[in-house]
């Protein structure tokens, strides 16, 4: 099985880039790319020991109404990442976010309310340039036909999250002290 592991990864990446390269000009695929970004960001992020579950599940929560992103995230469910197995949960109610490792905010959800509801260790991911300015962890947005992201280190540090420097280097803006 260990032989097949990288092969699976390659296949996935193949899909990822094939989609990225083919779909970058098309809006329809933007959500897919964003989902891939989220998947990769998770890779470069370390959660505090206390937050980790014994069954190695990583809870990936989406809050909001149905959206392309929400659909795209479904695809991540059950994927292995590092030592984790992604467990995608969708909800419209902020109260359900208590144990989430990653909290993805749909466009329809008020950030302030979302901030209050989130778990003490959740990496918050939202769309738009202002998401990070409002206190979000990672904000994805579109620039020059490419998906970009900013990171708010103050926010992630406050949650005890460690973001890889390699990720930070690829961020368009990093707020807070590194």
């Amino acid at each position, binding site marked *: 099985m260990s032989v097949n592991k990288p092969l699976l*990864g390659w296949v996935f990446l193949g899909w990822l880039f094939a989609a990225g390269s083919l779909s970058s000009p098309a809006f329809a695929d933007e959500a897919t790319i964003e989902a891939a*970004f989220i998947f*990769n960001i998770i*890779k470069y992020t370390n959660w505090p020991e206390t937050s980790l579950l014994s069954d190695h599940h990583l809870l990936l929560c989406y809050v909001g109404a149905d959206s392309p992103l929400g659909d795209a995230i479904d695809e991540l469910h059950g994927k292995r990442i*590092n030592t984790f197995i992604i467990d995608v949960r969708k909800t419209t109610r902020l109260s359900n976010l208590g144990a989430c490792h990653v909290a993805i905010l749909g466009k329809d959800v008020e950030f302030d309310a979302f901030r209050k509801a989130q778990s003490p260790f959740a990496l918050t991911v939202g769309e738009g340039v202002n998401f990070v300015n409002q206190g979000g962890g990672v904000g994805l947005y579109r620039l020059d036909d*490419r998906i970009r992201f900013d990171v708010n280190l103050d926010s992630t540090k406050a949650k005890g999250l460690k973001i890889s420097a*390699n*990720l930070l280097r*690829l961020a368009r803006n990093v707020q807070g002290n590194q």
Partner: protein
Amino acid sequence: MINHPVMNWYRNSRIGKKLLFINAVTMSTAGLLLILLIGIILTFTERYKMLDQVRVQAMMNAEGLGATLVFNDPLAANEQLATLKNLPYISKADLYNAEGKPFARYKRNDLTAVALPNSIPDVNNHIPELVDYGWLSLRYQRIVKARGQDVGFLYMEAGLELLYRQMLYFMGLAIVAILLATSVSLVLLNRLQNSITSPLLGLTGLMGDISKGNDYTRRFKLDTHDEIGELATGFNKMLQQIEKRDEALDMELQERKQSEVRLDRLAHYDTVTQLPNRYFFGRRLAAETTEYRVYGHEFGLLFIDLDNFKIINDTLGHHVGDELLRQISGRFKSIVRSGDTVARLGGDEFGVILANLAHPADAALVAAKVIEKFAIPLQLEGHEIVVGASIGISLFPQDADNTDELMKNADAAMYHAKNKGKNNYQFFSEALRGLAHHRMVIESQLRRGLQASELFLHYQPQFDMASRRILGVEALLRWQHKELGRINPGEFIPVAEESGLIVPIGEWVFRTACEQSKAWHDAGLILTMAVNLSGRQFREENFVERFKLILNETGANPNWMELELTESSLMDSSENTLTKLNALTSLGLKLSIDDFGTGYSSMSYLKRFPISKLKIDRSFVTNINSDSEDQAIAKAIIALGTSMEMRIIAEGIETEEQLSKLLESGCHQGQGYLISPAIAPDEVVSICVKYNVQKITA
């Protein structure tokens, strides 16, 4: 031998230059080899180091690049690759995604960089790293991972050109340094090696000087104790040896020269008179003939024989004879000119070369002067002695065309002078040439005639003048030549005397006379047999023994044999003469003196020698009736002989008047034509019968 210009230069160079050359070559070779080795080692280690650096860079960048790949951020990837520009050796870095498509690129923007072939990495080979270790470049490829997942490849190239260039630069610097170091050390070496080369140069210089100047007293001063010191010491020792040998050789050469001078003197000069000898004289003659051929200078030759020198030498002793010769030499020297040559040719013979003779009369003048000077008596140990000289003169080229002939002619002329009564000079003439030739013929014929029994004896009776009875005979030699007929004894006996033939002939005469005497005795004819004895014979060492032998062999009675000697032969070496005469008389032989009164007679010898008979010379007999002086001499001889109890015989009696005068004077025996000439043996018998010889019957 290699004939390369460099090798030729090397062979002809001085040691100093050779040492410098050797050092320069070895030092620079060693330096260059060292540099090369260091360069190669450095290049290898640097390549490994470079590969390590490339690997480290790849590893360091891989994680970040992995992120760029997963976030599809080629700009960031390019930016990250661009940071490689701080590492100048990395010429190229390409990032490929998992599908093998180029994602980001870095290429060193270096105009001088060598364009490397565009290499396409092996994307399908999923090994973690791949190293291509090339000569021009190092290629490295590794998988890029993002959080443990393979997301692409990083391909890097490091150009080695820069490394090589650095190495070259380094080596260039090192070579310059080596050359600098070599030249500095060569300067030092040049100074230091003077301690080796300068003594060597000094040695070779000294050797050159010595071989030019041959001065072996020189030495090389050097107080080092290395091999050169030993060489110098050896050289000095060798010089010492050479010097010693040189000195020894010089001494030997000097001695040899001195002895050569002595030998030359001996070879060319007579020890008694210090005059040139016959050998030197011959060379002078040859030189004069050459001078004649070149300059036309004629010259004359005087051949001088001292008269009666032998008598003086024998009677007064050799030292007186030598002194006489020396004084005579002085006289010769005072007469001739400085350019003339006087030489002693042997015994009592002298030769004079009259160089550059203007006229033959001049030679006569010199000869006359010699005779004139010789008339002055010489004082020798209290004796006053007069020596005559017989001189023969021959002229060149008038008389001869070579030196041998010239000498022979002068000799012939000298004999002619002697025959003319001594103490005069004679020129050589064509007549003498004939005479000389005649003598030569006679000598050779006489030699042959003796072998061919052409000689025979005739006997002239000796008789008692009162009774006319035959008492004995004198044996006289005759020669009947097979072609020339009878030859006069006066003609061939002098030749026999001169040539020495008289010795064998004399013996033959004695033997024949003995045989005849014996035959007559056996036949009852008792006669005394007188035989003439030549002075030459008398001087022969073993002559007495020879005669004794002949007497024994023939069986003749010595008491009836008589030897007639001349006065001059008796003058020779008195003691020896006496011994010989006594030996002869002890054999029983009788001795008589022939031609008495004509020679230089010292009356004393008559007393000392065992002479039993005197023979008055015919010259006194011939004119005994007309010349009162001759008559007086004859009478004196007769009185002398009678008083000394010797018998007296007169020879050459031809008339009755002479016979009666001699009888009247007291001489009782005679010999001459009046009674009989010399006759053959059988005639003797008949004449004895005629004159009533007393016959003794056995």
